[in-house]
């Protein structure tokens, strides 16, 4: 059964009660929350994900709950808990769903050491992964959303999970997070994108999430081979430009962008180096023209 087959009442009752178990890529996460905004956001963004059976093992148990006592009513906050412990400070209650998403990112990045985890968006075309590692502000998620809008399969907009045994990228399709100016930019480009309401004044500014396509979620167990590694950089007003990047420089960028590289030691180095060996490496600068950017990537994928 997928989450979308549950009625809004069933979703609310599970989230507000024993927890709703959702399979997200290779991970089953049990989520609990009493926030109506999270109930509706789960119904929207995770509709195509499989609702795991109650008896199925849950890798993570997380919750986003209000405080007890008067703080429930006076400037209410939301607290994310992982295995009943809060790794972060509470945030304002209206940020409950972004907090859940950021918390899930934290869970994956700090717990899933069976993978080499890179801070990167990952998409797929013709069985090959396009990995875009980049710091905040580089336009990574904006490009990711634009490519998804034009049919690229979403593996993740935030975390590239590289299976250290196979060297392939494991999908974990979740909502795409957009911030500030990119919200309108993507909204104009992807006019039928399913977005949650804008949440203002977060630590990252204004934030929305975009529902991952059901077709991407349906292929959650289909891994992707190395294809392209592209370092995006947003530069206002510039024309799209794709330039080759040396493999050595690319490897150092991936090392910098990895959450758990040091934990894997020499094996991590070999996995990344093999991944780069099998990929074409580029840097890409663009000035916000998403049509031009998508055309560049379509040409790149078509030339492979």
């Amino acid at each position, binding site marked *: 059964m997928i989450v979308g087959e549950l009625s809004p009442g069933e979703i609310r009752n599970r989230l507000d009660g024993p927890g709703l178990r959702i399979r997200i890529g290779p991970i089953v996460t049990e989520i609990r929350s009493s926030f109506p905004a999270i109930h509706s956001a789960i119904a929207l963004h995770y509709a195509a994900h499989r609702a795991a059976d109650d008896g199925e093992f849950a890798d993570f148990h997380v919750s986003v709950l209000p405080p007890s006592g008067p703080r429930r009513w006076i400037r209410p906050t939301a607290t994310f808990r992982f295995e009943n412990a809060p790794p972060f400070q509470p945030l304002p209650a209206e940020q409950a769903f972004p907090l859940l998403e950021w918390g899930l990112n934290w869970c994956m990045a700090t717990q899933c050491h069976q993978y080499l985890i890179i801070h990167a968006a990952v998409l797929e075309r013709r069985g090959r992964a396009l990995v875009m590692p980049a710091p905040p502000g580089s336009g990574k998620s904006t490009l990711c959303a634009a490519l998804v809008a034009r049919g690229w399969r979403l593996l993740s907009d935030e975390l590239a999970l590289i299976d250290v045994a196979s060297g392939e990228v494991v999908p974990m399709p979740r909502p795409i997070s957009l911030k500030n100016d990119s919200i309108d930019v993507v909204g104009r480009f992807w006019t039928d994108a399913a977005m949650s309401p804008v949440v203002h004044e977060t630590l990252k500014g204004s934030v929305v999430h975009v529902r991952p396509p059901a077709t991407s979620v349906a292929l959650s167990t289909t891994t992707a081979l190395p294809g392209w590694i592209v370092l995006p950089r947003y530069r206002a007003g510039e024309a799209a430009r794709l330039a080759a990047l*040396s*493999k*050595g*420089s690319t*490897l*150092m960028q991936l*090392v910098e962008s990895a959450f758990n*590289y*040091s934990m894997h*030691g*020499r094996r991590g*180095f*070999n996995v990344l*180096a093999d991944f780069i*060996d099998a990929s074409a490496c580029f840097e890409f600068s663009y000035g916000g023209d998403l049509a031009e950017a998508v055309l560049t990537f379509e040409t790149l994928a078509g030339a492979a």
Partner: protein
Amino acid sequence: MSEASPWRAVSPDAIAVREWDEELVVYNDCTGHTHHLAPFGGKVLLALLDNPAGLELPELIESVAATLQISEAEVLAPVVEEALEELARLDLIACDPA
């Protein structure tokens, strides 16, 4: 810098190497660090990795010159010494006391 002191890779078995064109990236098990070496530094390190017992400075210069197909090896001395300092700073090589 003493010419009688052999230079050697700190622990050749602990160093994993990837070479792409003129680029060398190495991982050092002993430190857990990854280094993207300048092309010439990469040649110097490879020469020492090929000779785990170590090389005296003149031998090392000859070895690098042979790799680069340079007949007048002595012109490389200043850049080899500069590369050795950098590789030692990265804890990839050491100079054994004579």
